[in-house]
């Protein structure tokens, strides 16, 4: 089993239904490539853990096919899948020392004791656990526990690593450290990994690709940059980026988009419905005075200002037309004051108000007036 087998993971129309309720996953198609670090994100209860546990074999597959490498694993018991999992609550064996914890899997598989010792010591070395090998989990800090859990997964040299929110019980600083270690381990060993998290910073920094789930549906899969710069729908747009993309309702006049804040002349809108959603990243907004001439300008009353040092988050607008701008934190703004902002018309996103799907326009349409090519 251990060797150079290809460890891609493929969900083909996988359905998961827990005891006669509505299906948790109504039909998942997802291909995780060999050696990839795939991050699953999504709101609570969207089925991330379920997906992961199906790969591990801890949950059954209701319908569809689940492949690991060239094996159909639907009915394969967990121990034959050659996967290792790191749990949110560490799940160490409390009555065993750190060494025994890491050695357990190898001992169960009847590896020679010499081999076990070498492997455990190597893993302990990598993870900085050498001094802790004789301790029991009760005598370790949370971060150390999670490193032991990581080591326990590593020593078996599995085909696939699964992580279910491994860092969410740690404090912010440790989380950053552990995130870096996990990233380093993946670069070093290149083992196919699937990582579940709530935290989009973790997702962005660790993932080769990210799969965004919502209510059991796969919203989009792509590299972090693809998801950030080319979201398929409002959900993904709102999920990636912090603060999230501003979504403003606009009316489609055919030749322009309009709402109470702004008016935006634009070609090629005839194909779209009457009500649209306009997506604007907070970081694409800048003060009107500093913007190039062809940018779209508008002004809105300041509601609140959050100062972050080098930059500030300005909350503007009223009612449905609220947005956040990320601006250099240089001047002082008072709530109520009217602020003039501008954005590049090429940097906006359009979504259908009903389906909330992205409306893609041909590149040329959004080009500056002078270079316009009429279709």
């Amino acid at each position, binding site marked *: 089993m251990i060797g150079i087998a290809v460890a891609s993971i493929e969900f083909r129309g996988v359905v998961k239904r827990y005891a006669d309720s509505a299906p948790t996953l109504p039909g998942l198609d997802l291909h995780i490539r060999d050696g990839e670090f795939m991050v699953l994100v999504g709101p609570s209860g969207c089925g991330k853990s379920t997906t992961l546990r199906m790969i591990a074999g*801890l949950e059954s597959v209701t319908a569809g096919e689940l492949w690991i490498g060239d094996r159909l694993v639907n009915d394969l018991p967990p121990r034959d899948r050659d996967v*290792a*999992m790191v*749990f949110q*609550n560490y*799940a160490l*064996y409390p009555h065993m020392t750190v060494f025994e914890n890491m050695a357990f899997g190898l001992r*169960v598989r009847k590896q020679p004791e010499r081999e076990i010792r070498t492997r455990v010591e190597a893993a302990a070395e990598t993870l900085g656990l050498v001094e802790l090998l004789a301790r029991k989990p*009760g*005598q370790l800090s949370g971060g150390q526990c999670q490193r032991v859990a990581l080591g326990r997964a590593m020593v078996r040299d599995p085909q696939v690593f699964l992580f279910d929110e491994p860092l969410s019980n740690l404090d912010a600083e440790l989380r950053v450290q552990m995130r870096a270690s996990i990233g380093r381990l993946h670069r070093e060993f290149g083992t196919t990994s699937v990582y579940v998290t709530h935290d989009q910073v973790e997702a962005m920094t660790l993932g080769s690709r990210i799969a965004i789930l919502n209510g059991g549906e796969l919203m989009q899969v792509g590299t972090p940059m693809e998801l950030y710069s080319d979201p398929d729908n409002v959900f993904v747009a709102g999920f990636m980026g912090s603060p999230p993309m501003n979504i403003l309702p606009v009316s489609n006049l055919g030749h322009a988009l309009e709402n109470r804040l702004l008016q935006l002349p634009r070609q090629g809108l005839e194909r779209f419905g009457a009500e649209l959603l306009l997506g604007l990243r907070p970081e694409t907004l800048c003060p009107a005075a500093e913007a190039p001439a062809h940018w779209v300008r508008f002004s809105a009353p300041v509601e609140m200002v959050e100062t972050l040092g080098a930059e500030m988050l300005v909350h503007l607008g009223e009612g449905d037309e609220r947005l956040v701008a990320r601006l250099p934190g240089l001047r002082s703004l008072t709530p109520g004051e009217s602020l003039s902002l501008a954005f590049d018309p090429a940097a906006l996103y359009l979504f259908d108000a009903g389906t909330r799907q992205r409306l893609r326009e041909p590149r040329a349409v959004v080009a500056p007036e002078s270079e316009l090519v009429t279709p």
Partner: protein
Amino acid sequence: MRQILTQNQSAAGALESPRWRRLKSVLRDVFSWRFALLVFASLVVIYPLLWVVSLAFSGQQSLQLVQDTRDLGLWGQLAALVPLPEQWSLQNFRAVLTEQPFMRWLLNSVVVAAGTTVIGLVLSCTAAYAFSRFRFPGRNRGLMLFLVSQMFPAVLMLIPLYVIVVQWLGLGNSWLGLILVYAITALPFCVWMLKGYFDTLPFEIEESALLEGASRLTIFYRIILPLARPAIAVTGLFSFMTAWNEFILASIFMDDEALYTVPVGLRFFVSDYSSEWGYFAAGSILVSVPVILLFLALQRFLVSGLSAGAVKG
């Protein structure tokens, strides 16, 4: 306490020495109503025990340690309330251990109680694990039935048990019959107790082991049982004590004097035809010794929180 006191001292200056303060606080504790209540309760418990002890060491068979109290005056009569024998003697113990078949009874009791504990634990650990971890038809109803069976007094089962064990199985007058009966009557309590504990062990520990290649049986032996040691110690002790102290069933199932368990044997000393209270007391003390030893031996397992640290947050 000590810390608080020393802190107070530095605040109050050198007016009162720390020792004096400590003494004062101890005195305050001693003269509180709570302390009085505890002392009273302890006396109520200990007083009869003292009688048994002095009876056992008096070397006599009579319940009266001081022969005649009428001419002794008030103080003498009060002193007679204090359970002290007129002379100390090990005669009762010697007699119980040598002249009476007490050792034989003790052996019976040990075999029966140990057998009950072992069989009871094997059955209840496996059953409780299944109830805790597997979902199968009749699971809830089974647990409920166990509970319901505990609502009836044990005496109620006397006749059916006698019919089944003695008449049908022919296991009257044998260790095995008693062991079976005790193990099975203790089962509902043991299963509930252990299931409750197994329920508190996080699933992820087992799932992790499952992924590492362990079978259910390996997980049960190498992870669940070691983690459940405190609960197993308690249930084991319970089974042992049930078997060790039981009288009614034992007296009915065992006709042969050589097969009596200790409680039945002890009763023999103070039957209609004899009243050897001294032997009875000495025997009672001897019977308590193994139980006390068992408690001491298991004490370190009775520490809860063994699973602390398995899971954080």
